[in-house]
């Protein structure tokens, strides 16, 4: 039996969108068996882009601005896999820190709104 807490914040994916994403991920896993290995990175990044697209359809209050700008960047730079491999790899190396910074900002915001001022 799960002991996890109920999710905090609004849901940003419908069941249909979640299944679209599941179909995409399972299909990607299958074709990764036969495609060049680095294509796997592209499938993950593309899945992330699709996830952000679905999120934006639900206009997430706290992260919409970040998601909108980052998706735009992802959609531009994922194409570099075909035309500028080194630029693409540099983007892959830098992207996690961008998401991590947004996570940290959201967490700080959450704490600010959850805790009363101690001053």
């Amino acid at each position, binding site marked *: 039996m799960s002991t996890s807490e109920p999710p905090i914040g609004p849901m940003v994916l419908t069941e249909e969108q979640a*299944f*679209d994403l599941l*179909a*995409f991920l399972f*299909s990607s896993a*299958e*074709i990764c068996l036969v495609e060049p290995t680095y*294509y796997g990175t592209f499938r993950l990044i593309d899945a992330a882009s699709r996830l952000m697209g679905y999120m934006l359809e639900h206009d997430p209050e706290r992260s919409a601005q970040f998601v909108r700008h980052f998706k735009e960047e992802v959609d531009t730079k994922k194409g*570099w896999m075909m035309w*500028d491999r080194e630029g693409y790899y540099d983007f892959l190396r830098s992207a996690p820190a961008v998401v991590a910074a947004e996570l940290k900002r959201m967490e700080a915001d959450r704490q600010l709104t959850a805790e009363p001022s101690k001053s």
Partner: protein
Amino acid sequence: MSAATSPAFVDQVLALMKSRRVCRVFTDEPVSDEHLRTLTEAARWATSGGNRHLHKFLVVRDPETLRRVRSVSPGMQVLPPAMIVILTDLEVAARESLQMDHDHANWMDVGTAAMNMMNMAHALGIGTCPVTSFSRSGAAFMLGLPPHLIPEWILIAGHPKSQERVLRADAPKPVRARDLTYWERVGQHEPQPR
């Protein structure tokens, strides 16, 4: 000199080939049945190993079917107005005693039909994008294919929307025909006087 070999015609054909690009952004305008029929006509006239005509061409315009096929096609970046799926007909393959695991002509024929369609689409002002990255089993299910028809390749088509390609200043330059071509021996990129 026939019209088909006149210098002007040669220039037109080469210009058509050089200006074609993969299109990943389409308008909502549907592709006419007439244009789709012209694309399948172009596919029919592609080279076919042994004149076997191993492949069939499935035209899809229904938005729901397109959406479902896209869900199992990671290589399909956008939802297109139409697509043409090249199918391998295993009944023809059996009749022709083809050894499918070893016969590369199958893939050659997919490629020639694909290229004919993409060039014809460009001539018609239709944008196309080839899709090879999709789940064969998933697409077959979504398309309701009988077991003897295998989806090999998908061409998505629509009216092109302008798309800007943003690249770094030091991105690699496009490859030239010269880079890929050897004359008489490997490593010699220009012809020597004969």
